[in-house]
């Protein structure tokens, strides 16, 4: 690993040592964050997968009934039946902070008091299959809302895990080794300077002694 381009001085050494401590602590924290995110993500994504299978199955059933209804009823009659829904669904959205990832939480509110108020048409002119379709969709709806919530959360968390993992790796494999290497380089350089000063002094002393006593 490359040594950083710094002056080999004592001040630089102290600075680097401090940075190394910070980097190590940051690395440990980020690693913990990654592990915890991963644990929650895996739980969530399993639920996501199961929910998706269920929801897709439910929608398929609703679609089958809907296709039959379309065949039995005329386009116009179907339009009229579904034109003015009696029910209106509204969402209350709150945000939850999971390891600094903001994930949405949905809470469903219905406009009319009776949640089963989903048939916006008279039963005289419509096919029973339409009722089946609407009922099937209505049954699967709570799961669809939960799916939306959990799928969005999974997507956000996957992003965050990817980012955190990159940071952890950058610290672990680039920053920390670089600091360590540079600290080692500066220490060596300073030691070397010290040794060269000592030898120089010894040499000067020899020369001075030689001069004073008129050796050789």
């Amino acid at each position, binding site marked *: 690993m490359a040594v950083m381009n710094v002056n080999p001085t004592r001040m630089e050494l102290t600075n680097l040592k401090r940075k190394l401590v910070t980097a190590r602590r940051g690395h440990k924290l980020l690693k913990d964050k990654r592990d915890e995110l991963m644990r929650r993500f895996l739980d969530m994504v399993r639920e996501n997968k199961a929910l998706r299978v269920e929801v897709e199955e439910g929608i398929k059933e609703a679609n089958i009934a809907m296709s039959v209804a379309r065949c039995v009823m005329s386009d116009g009659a179907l339009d009229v039946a*579904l034109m003015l829904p009696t029910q209106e*669904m509204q969402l*209350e959205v709150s945000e939850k902070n999971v390891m600094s990832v903001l*994930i*949405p939480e*949905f809470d469903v509110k219905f406009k009319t008091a009776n949640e089963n108020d989903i048939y916006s048409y008279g039963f005289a002119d419509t096919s029973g299959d339409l009722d089946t379709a609407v009922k099937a969709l209505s049954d699967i709806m709570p799961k669809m809302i939960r799916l939306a919530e959990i799928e969005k959360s*999974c997507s956000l968390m996957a992003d965050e895990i990817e980012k955190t993992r990159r940071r952890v790796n950058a610290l672990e494999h680039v920053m920390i080794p670089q600091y360590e290497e540079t600290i080692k380089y500066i220490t060596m350089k300073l030691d070397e300077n010290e040794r060269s000063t000592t030898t120089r002094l010894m040499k000067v002393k020899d020369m001075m002694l030689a001069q004073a006593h008129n050796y050789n």
Partner: protein
Amino acid sequence: MYKIAAMGDKDSIYGFASLGISIFPTDDPAQGIKTLRRLAEAEYAVIYITEKLTSEMKDEIARYDAKPLPAIIPVPGIRGNTGIGLDNVSKFVEKAVGSDILS
């Protein structure tokens, strides 16, 4: 208060209307992108889009990936399930873990 929307071909999303979800029937991806932008700016927290339309406007949908709202969820349309939804889940796992460990 946020609302819920459904986009896609008319046949697939018609049923949602009776549940009180706002429906925006469209077949055309260009039109779909316009509608999606409008919905994302308006107060829609969840937007269900049929898988067929989802596959045709992937890039536009990817723009909303990093934002907490709206949640854009692919659902199977009347022509059947193309598996995009489950593929997406696998992609999340791949992104987070490195390989799809659930499949």
